[in-house]
């Protein structure tokens, strides 16, 4: 480790001690050890560390992960709702890390951040997509169905999640389309007539949700910590909202990370409906498949714009605009109207 990196680590350790001191007033002899950076996401930088302290004479320890807001990335979402949702879902059976502490304004650790309990497992999703990982992947997919069913049947009102923007079965799709279209209009770097047309299509074909549930918003291989065939934690809740649960199911089956080779979507949906009691209507299914292609398109264009504007220097997202062509072709291929789909 370079001297500069060691100094930065030492400063951050002290900042974390101060954060714990502020949020656990009875804590004494606080120590932060084994601080090390983890893989950086596009919107959050992750650090692993161990904390120990003494509280009312009892020794306490916690294996922790701090997620600290990165410079501008693909999406800019507030941390507090994400942290509160993670906290509220504790004890519901949804595999989730325990929420520990939050620094919403970056008062202690320079940028907004929160700390979760560190959970064992790997998030290596490419390994699940390789032929040699098929058996493990099948097991993880089976557990993923259970996790989806559990998440979508949580009584979110009883859990105090009424602070999430309200929606209804009739407005769930409209609100999401409106949100993503507003990002598109704010971040597009050219008119993108095809996207304008796609948003019009989404506005003209909105389905009614069977019910309003918590929607993870980024529910997929890649946002799981798994060990063997079991999922230990569902990660990355920054796009969580209330809405149509079908949005999560179809996001999990986008081409980039789909488990379709080990569990076709039809089987996933059938198992899900059996476990959750939530029917999945064909129109909702195709609608959210189309919607998600647009959603990922806008996420990518937002990232490219952030880099172009110099609000982030993360080269990993610099060329994301080039990835959207295939998403848009997928959108056209899935359109239900043959006259639009087959056009060439």
């Amino acid at each position, binding site marked *: 480790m370079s001297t500069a990196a060691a100094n930065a680590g030492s400063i951050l350790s002290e900042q974390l001690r101060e954060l714990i001191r502020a949020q656990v007033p009875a804590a004494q002899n606080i120590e932060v050890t084994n601080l090390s*950076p983890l893989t950086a996401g596009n919107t959050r930088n992750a650090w692993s560390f161990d904390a120990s302290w003494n509280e009312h004479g009892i020794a306490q320890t916690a294996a922790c992960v701090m997620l600290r807001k990165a410079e501008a990335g693909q999406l800019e979402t507030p941390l507090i709702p994400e942290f509160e949702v993670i906290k509220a879902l504790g004890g519901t059976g949804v595999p989730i890390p325990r929420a520990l502490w939050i620094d919403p304004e970056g008062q202690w650790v320079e940028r907004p951040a929160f700390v979760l309990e560190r959970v064992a497992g790997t998030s290596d999703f490419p390994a699940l997509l390789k032929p040699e990982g098929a058996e493990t992947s099948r097991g993880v997919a089976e557990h993923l169905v259970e996790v989806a069913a559990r998440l979508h049947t949580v009584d979110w009102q009883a859990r105090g999640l009424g602070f999430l923007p309200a929606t209804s079965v009739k407005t769930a799709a409209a609100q999401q389309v409106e949100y993503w279209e507003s990002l598109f209009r704010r971040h597009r770097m050219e*008119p993108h*007539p095809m996207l304008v047309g796609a948003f*019009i299509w989404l506005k003209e074909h909105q389905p009614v949700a069977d019910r309003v549930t918590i929607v993870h918003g980024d529910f997929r291989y890649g946002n799981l910590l798994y060990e063997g065939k079991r999922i230990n934690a569902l990660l990355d809740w920054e796009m969580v909202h209330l809405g149509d649960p079908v949005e999560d199911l179809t996001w999990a089956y986008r081409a980039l990370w789909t488990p379709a080779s080990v569990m076709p979507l039809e089987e996933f949906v059938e198992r899900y409906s059996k476990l959750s009691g939530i029917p999945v209507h064909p129109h909702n299914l195709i609608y959210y498949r189309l919607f998600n292609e647009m959603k990922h398109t806008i996420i990518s264009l937002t990232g490219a714009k952030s880099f172009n504007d110099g609000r982030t220097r993360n080269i990993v997202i610099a060329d994301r605009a080039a990835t959207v*062509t*295939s998403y*848009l*072709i997928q959108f*056209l291929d899935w359109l239900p109207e043959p006259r639009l789909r087959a056009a*060439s």
Partner: protein
Amino acid sequence: MIRPTIGELLSGVATSLRERVLPEIPAGTTRRQIQAAIGIIARVALVWDKTAPYLYADNMDIAETLERIQPTLERVAVEEDNPRVRAVLTKLHQTLEHSSEPLGPCPSAEVLGARNLELQEVLAEIQEALHEETAVESATRDGVNTELYALFRRMLTRELEITQPPRRR
């Protein structure tokens, strides 16, 4: 000077970075940044020389499509006396007139790109007008949309050559 071309030069740089520099960098954030940069350089190397022809073909295709849907919009503007469609039509006429002006013997990618943006703008506005003006009969809307979606597919197919070019052997 023709050789090395920009494409060849960038391709060589990407290869050198991948073979000589990357192995020296330990796993971590810096390595991921360098890997991403190499990927971008390699893509740009493959498409550098194709950008102007791509934009030229795109502009031609959009202009021809606009010419095909122009009579339908003219009919809507006159028969239904629709001011929104009339405004879009005026812009369409101006843009087509502008796009038929000669660009000179060797238009740059920048000039072609600026024209592409103008044409894209008209396409976006036509769709917005037809969506917002509910009085326009659905058969008219469907006819225009069929033309436009066919264009979008052709545009995306062309765009793939630029955004995800086949790798050189």
